[in-house]
């Protein structure tokens, strides 16, 4: 029985082994270039990803006594997260060299955060979920502080740790309350016991603690204050990791919880979550307008994106869950495209101020067109993933009689178009400050081309993705 369990857990174990190998090379062979470790990480994760596809496809079982679920749902997210990490380690290579990061630690800790995320998406029990979140978060705290000589990075890390610890406290408190109500921490057990519960007050209290804890991690309004500072201070690839990887992993958990475990008490959380969704997307997108730093702008835009994603949870239907996962997949591809083009530009202009993006279209046409594509996709314009996935998500809301929510979300994307166009204008209309071309590496070019193709593919031919996602939603329910 145990061997079977361990075999199904090999993807996580292999990633952990890879992390240890990377750490050791960093310590014992510091002469090895950072490119080597970056390549080792991405290729290693790629091989493990293929292995995971082979090992876990079609499996549907709970392991270690219903602590972790191995099903299409968790497998889909594991593969998505591994793909994201491959991209992030690939775009880190030039960046680590530029700022002289200790690559062994850098890539090793990224891999540890991946283990946390992968465990999180398959967790079927609150304590496991909590420990996975902590594994992920602690890795991120360290990574945010990685630019040791940059005071902003240090400040961001302190903020992130303090607020992160606070939110973990809330989360833990929520878990305790739920345990007090139901006597169990397993998702299935909680669902059964709150089904027969008459008093709503205790559930409401527990849910708000739990929701606030997760809300901090997701940076949804009103728990979003840390995001702009942390996004700005963290090294660029880590900003990408926080905004894509950790967000997707935590949304995967939230979807499991709300569409399944807490579904019996939907009347308690649905109105609150709808209002939070609306305030999140509107606040995020409005505050983004005044930003002059691309990382802060993306922080607010990413807050706005969380608002759209909450719609998928509020729907509490199969269509809504499919829409949410599809949207997250499209968001992952789009954001990777965006961050990799920003890394290319950063390597050339050594700044994250939007005004320094002037005339990038002349200095590196590929990065400019990729960033334009990504921003248009985030704004939800056709040809790109954003249009199709948002259409799906909002259709799910309309189907659940929440057309007003879809309408407000669509209106919020008009606001977002305004500041995205500001960035595009800077790149295409204004004159460059220097006429030198910005050089890129082959790795970066490969990453953005692959991401551009996936962004367009999800936008124009989503049905294969939808098929897989429908299967994974079915596994959830």
């Amino acid at each position, binding site marked *: 029985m145990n061997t079977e369990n361990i075999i199904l857990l090999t993807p996580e174990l292999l990633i952990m082994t890879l992390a240890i190998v990377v750490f050791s090379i960093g310590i014992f062979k510091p002469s090895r270039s950072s490119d080597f470790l970056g390549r080792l990480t991405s290729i290693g994760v790629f091989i493990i990803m293929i292995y995971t596809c082979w090992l876990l496809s079609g499996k549907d079982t709970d392991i270690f006594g219903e602590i972790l679920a191995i099903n299409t749902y968790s497998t889909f997210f594991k593969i998505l997260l591994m793909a994201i990490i491959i991209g992030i380690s690939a775009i880190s290579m030039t960046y680590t060299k530029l700022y002289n990061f200790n690559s062994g630690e850098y890539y090793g800790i990224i891999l540890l955060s991946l283990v946390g995320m992968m465990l999180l998406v398959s967790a079927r029990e609150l304590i496991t979920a909590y420990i996975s979140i902590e594994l992920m978060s602690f890795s991120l705290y360290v990574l945010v502080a990685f630019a040791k000589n940059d005071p902003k990075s240090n400040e961001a890390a302190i903020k992130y740790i303090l607020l992160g610890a606070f939110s973990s406290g809330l989360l833990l408190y929520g878990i305790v309350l739920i345990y007090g109500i139901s006597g169990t921490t397993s998702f299935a057990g909680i669902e059964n016991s709150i089904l027969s519960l008459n008093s709503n007050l205790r559930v409401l209290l527990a849910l708000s603690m739990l929701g606030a804890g997760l809300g901090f991690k997701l940076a949804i309004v009103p728990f979003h204050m840390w995001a702009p500072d942390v996004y700005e201070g963290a090294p660029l690839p880590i900003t990408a990791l926080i905004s894509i990887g950790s967000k997707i992993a935590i949304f995967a958990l939230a979807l499991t919880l709300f569409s399944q475990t807490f579904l019996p008490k939907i009347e308690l959380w649905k109105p609150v979550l709808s209002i939070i969704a609306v305030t999140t997307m509107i606040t995020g997108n409005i505050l983004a307008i005044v930003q002059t730093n691309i990382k802060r702008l993306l922080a607010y835009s990413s807050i706005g994106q969380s608002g759209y994603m909450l719609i998928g949870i509020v729907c509490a239907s199969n269509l809504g869950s499919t829409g949410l996962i599809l949207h997250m997949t499209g968001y992952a591809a789009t954001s990777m495209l965006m961050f990799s083009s920003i890394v290319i530009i950063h390597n050339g202009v050594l700044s994250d101020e939007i005004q320094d993006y002037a005339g990038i279209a002349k200095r590196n046409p590929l990065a400019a067109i990729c960033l334009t594509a990504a921003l248009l996709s985030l704004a939800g314009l*056709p040809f790109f993933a954003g249009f199709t996935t948002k*259409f799906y998500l*909002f*259709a799910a809301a309309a189907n659940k009689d929440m057309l007003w929510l879809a309408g407000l979300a*669509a*209106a919020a994307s*008009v606001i977002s178009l305004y500041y995205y166009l500001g960035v595009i204008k800077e790149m295409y*209309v204004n004159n460059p400050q220097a006429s030198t071309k910005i050089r890129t590496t082959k790795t970066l070019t490969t990453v953005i081309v692959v991401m551009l193709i996936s962004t367009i593919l999800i936008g124009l031919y989503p*049905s294969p993705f*939808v098929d897989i996602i429908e299967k994974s939603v079915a596994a959830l329910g």
Partner: protein
Amino acid sequence: MEFLDNNILLLIILLPSVGSLFLLFFKDTDPVNTRTFAMIISVAGLILSVYLFSSALSSKELGDFSSSITWLPSLGIHLNLSISGPTSALVLLNAVIFFASILVSRNIEIRPNHFFFWLMLLVGGVYGVFLSQDLFFFFFFYELAVVPMYLLIAVWGSSSDFVSFIRTKEYGAMKLTLYLVAGSVLVWVGILALWAEGAETLGAFTMDINTLRNVNYDRDFQLFFFPFFMIGFGILAGLWPFHTWSPDGHVAAPTAVSMLHAGVLMKLGAFGILQIGILLLPEGAIYWSPLFMSLGIINVLYGSISALAQQDLKYVIGYSSVSHMGYVLLGLATLNSTGFNGAILQMVSHGIMTALFFALVGFIYEQTHTRNIQILEGLAKKMPIAAGFFTLAGLTSLGLPGLSGFVAELLIFIGLFKTSPLIAILAIIGAAITAVYILRLIAKVFFGPVNVQWEHLRDFSKSETLPILFLTLFIVGIGLFPWPIMNVIDSGIEQFVAKLSGV
């Protein structure tokens, strides 16, 4: 041939939209080859659309061209394409203006490959809107046609610079994009509502317009959601009071983009009101038609009075577009077949006429580097050909018999007299104001005393006359022999009226 017939509609959309991607591999500094490539694509589109139009003309069964591809069955989305009489005329209009706009884009210096890339994407979107029979794809192509506008205007456009009145191209581009996208949000909400409500009645998800046509939406539902389409699409059609993006945007845009935008893109809005609003929500259309008609007549009068007051040559044409789109909206608001016929014919006629206007203004601006009416005087001495064609376009605009504008406006007036004689009289007054500003403009710019600073100007060369002549052919052709195109349009109007009379 059968294979071509089955896929011709898909082909006509894919040619420009997929063809545009090839342009990205052209060199930045190679205007000749990029333009030739764009030209080939536009000619191919022209040939296909002439073939479609002549099939409609020979009353061939247009249903043979329909095609359907399953795209996302879980939401009921299929790529359903089909063509009818009116759309075959509009597709031809798009092809004609695309071809003419490539012909006039001779001097694109900044990154010509990107310019034609965005331009072709826009054209592909327009074809898609006219041909889609599926709400999702209708909306998809509708947005696709809007996306390229920002960069086309902000990068390749020109700013208006008067002492008291400065409008940068970035301003025009941003205003246009935000207005249009805000309009499409309303359309989006409306489409989702139609879909969700339709699914409740039908028991299955579908975005197919032909299926949703048979759903009898609740009266309250229709009354509530018709304005979403009327205003949402109306913004793109230049509906008052949401028209202000249109002059600003058109003036800032480069010539080819102004031609396409005023020529075809604004028609998408009016077409959307007919194809989705009136077809699917007939009761809502009847209820709201008085308001719709009032807004339309304000468009006509307000647009033409504003045109009287403009200092910038291109702004005059911009406001005249607002005014002429008012006739299209009035034609739709009549809710009878004469009015619909007139509206579609006016879309074609105004599309070609305004493209001609913008091409001429672009030519004048290229030489004089000003569009200030106060400075431009007596140009006819130096450019008699341009003056002649401008006068012809002006006469079309004021509805002179024998030119295309007359036929279209006459049909709209007849349709209006059937429903609301008072509005019809006001509309005719609008045509009179048009005559005032057009004739004043022509007298001032072309036939006044010659200003010495224009001594160096030259007239059209032979090759430059080609696009102008090409567009004029259609104006005169439709004006003298309106029956073929009127029959083609009329053959597809019945479906819109049938549902209205059934209410």
